[in-house]
């Protein structure tokens, strides 16, 4: 059978030529003229994600998920595997890069109003991708089995336990028992290398499929009404293939290079293995600092109910509101001047998040700021 015959035979069975033609048509559709280099941001996130996958693959080939050997296997990756230190560093720094890029992407989308009809699901899928990344950050943090990771996981699962309704069951299921131990490590490992990546891949596929199908959002049109509906894509700009894809690829290349640079200049050092006492000054990653600081404010009991469980309603609702933003912010207006209310609400939320993050970062610390040493209490107030 000739090569051609083989492809024909496959096409009869799979119908790949039709699928390719449809995709090509969608990708060749001119995108709104305002779609310039903004796609580089999404490309950067994709590039970093790809590097996370590759480095994760290398790390998983050397990592051993058991309390006895996890810490030593990570030490071996760092010190004896050729380039192991770089993969390890890239993988850890990549988390921060991914979360930061996803948040920037969300800000860009919100400001341009690109989350609005008909692209609500694009936003929701993107938000879920971010949640999967956060899940990967939390599960991956435990894997080196350092004392710090052990105790921060213990604390995190303690918060999960206080979550309303399903909290205790979820915490027990995640921990595989009453305390963080070998079962927790196995569970976090399988979540980190199989469950969450699969989920992330599916959500990302949905997100990208929606971007391809619905196209990029048009800019603020002269006539707001004209921007409604599927057919509203103002034509005349570049197409996905090849222009926008190349810009995204350029973004990915620069992001990967930047990540490699940071990772190479700031590789992780040795850290004590789990088994020690709870370290002082336990603090989550920057993107969880606001949550960390907010939960400190919860009193022991509120109206006869466990205070923490009640307090958790606030971040839980905020997270739900973030994921479902397009359904809350329903006005079709894209021009910023026509969206004063939603802008004000989101700005207030972002300010609260930022303020809590700063308070969380300085709380229980002595810092040298503006040439003066200042001490801050648990609530981040200067002492």
């Amino acid at each position: 059978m000739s090569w051609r015959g083989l492809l024909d035979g496959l096409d009869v069975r799979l119908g790949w030529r039709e699928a390719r033609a449809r995709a090509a048509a969608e990708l060749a559709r001119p995108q709104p003229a305002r779609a310039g280099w903004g796609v580089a941001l999404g490309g950067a996130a994709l590039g970093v994600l790809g590097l996370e996958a590759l480095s994760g693959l290398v790390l998983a080939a050397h990592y051993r998920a058991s309390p006895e050997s996890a810490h030593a296997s990570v030490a071996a990756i760092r010190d004896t595997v050729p380039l192991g230190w770089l993969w390890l560093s890239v993988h850890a720094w990549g988390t921060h890069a991914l979360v930061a890029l996803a948040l920037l992407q969300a800000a860009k989308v919100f400001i341009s109003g690109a989350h609005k009809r008909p692209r609500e699901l694009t936003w929701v899928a993107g938000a879920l991708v971010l949640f999967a990344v956060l899940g990967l950050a939390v599960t991956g943090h435990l894997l080196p089995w350092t004392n710090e990771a052990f105790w921060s996981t213990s604390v995190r699962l303690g918060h999960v336990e206080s979550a309303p309704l399903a909290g205790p069951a979820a915490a027990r299921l995640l921990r595989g028992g009453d305390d963080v131990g070998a079962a927790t490590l196995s569970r976090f490992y399988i979540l980190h290398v199989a469950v969450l990546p699969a989920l992330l891949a599916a959500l990302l596929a949905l997100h990208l499929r929606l971007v391809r199908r619905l196209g990029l959002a048009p800019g603020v049109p002269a006539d707001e009404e004209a921007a409604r509906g599927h057919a509203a894509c103002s034509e005349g700009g570049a197409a996905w293939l090849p222009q926008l894809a190349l810009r995204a690829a350029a973004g990915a290349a620069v992001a990967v290079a930047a990540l490699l640079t940071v990772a190479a200049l700031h590789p992780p050092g040795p850290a004590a293995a789990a088994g020690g006492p709870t370290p002082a000054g336990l603090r989550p990653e920057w993107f969880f600092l606001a949550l960390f600081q907010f939960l400190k404010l919860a009193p022991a009991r509120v109206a006869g109910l466990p205070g923490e469980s009640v307090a958790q309603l606030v971040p839980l609702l905020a997270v739900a509101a973030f994921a479902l933003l397009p359904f809350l912010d329903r006005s079709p207006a894209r021009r910023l001047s026509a969206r004063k209310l939603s802008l004000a609400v989101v700005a207030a939320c972002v300010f609260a998040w930022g303020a809590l993050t700063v308070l969380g970062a300085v709380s229980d610390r002595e810092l040298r700021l503006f040439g003066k040493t200042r001490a801050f209490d648990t609530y981040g107030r200067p002492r």
Partner: protein
Amino acid sequence: MKRLLLLLAAAAATAEAGTCTDCHPGVEEPVLASAHPQTSCTDCHNGDDTAAEMTDAHATEKKFIGRPKALEWAAMCGDCHREAAQAWTASPHLDALRKGDPAGATCVSCHAAAATPSGHSLADCGDAGAPSARLQVAATCAKCHADGAAMARSGVRADAVELYGKGPHGHNVLEEKAADGPSCVDCHDAHASPRSSDPASAAHPSRQAQTCGRCHGDEKVMKPHGLSHGLVAKYEGSPHARGLDSGAPSCAGCHGPHLVRVPPVTEIVAHCGRCHEGPAREFAAGPHGKAVRTDPQTGEATPMSCEDCHGAHGARRPESPWAARSCGKCHAAGTPALADGERLSSISADTRADLVRLHGLLERARARGHQAGEGCEALAALDGAWQDMSALAHGVSAEAGAMARTAFVRDAKAVEESLGRLVPGPRDLRWLPAMWAFVLAGVVLMWRKSRA
């Protein structure tokens, strides 16, 4: 004169009180002569010393107890002598009494003369005739502690007092009646009398240096006996003092606890060899084991011993390079023997330096989270090889030392390589600029292509 007055006053008090002496003649005098002349009969026996009839005086409703039982003494004496009684309640003597062993000593066992019914002649230890007086202590303790059967019941040696008597301490006290010799209670507290295995005991190995040092570290005490007062301090700086927890000898480990003698030079190698097996074996088999020194003045011949290079109390490795310092005592410069010593000395110094470096490397690998099992095992083998080498050095053969060193160097190199892999040096970052050039070239290409 004063004593006489006291006696008279006391006699008056007892006479007034009464009637006990009517039936118990001869008890009054010892009490009056004792350290407690003013004590009345009822102080110890209860009952009523004013009663006219014996039955009234001995009535149980008057709480008459007759002769105080062994355990009752401490309660009674302890009313005033609190510290002593308190110490005694923790002593093995009380343990023995509780187990029903009559040999368990109570207050009167040591504080009363045996001639009268015990307790009536309580005497202060300052009183030369008292059983607890310094010159009498050995005899007092020996009443029980030389009794093989009694001691066997408590698992205590019965030859301690005998050995003490034969040694210089016992000789000073018992024969010379010297004022500064130690008695039993100088090392074994008089009232708590803890076993020497009890860390609270002044005779416990961990406290021997301190206890012996009270006299042996004091120039004023040692000088009249012609002894050095610096030996305890030397011992305290020795590896033995640091290794007490792992069974290294304290003072008694070499001198014996009760006999306290200076071990004769002919016994030293065998004695050290009880722990330092390899070195003692190699030494005995080597030329030094057969060497004899003759004193040029007296003509007295003495064999060489461990002390010649290591010192007795300091018990140190000779400091490197030790050839001139140690070998040079007997071997003249330029002789082949001294040259061999120099070679062995430098082999020893190099090997120790290698081990220090390798252990440092292992520590660093451990601190980085590596279990370093292989390297650790190989290093333990090297430590063992070093033990063998240092044992071998006592046979003073430079050839054997050089051969062992060659094998050591080969193995040490392998260990250094295996551990060194776990402690990487600075990372090579020269690829970073090249990567950026490549990426920027790609970005330019993409930009051009997207505009084409």
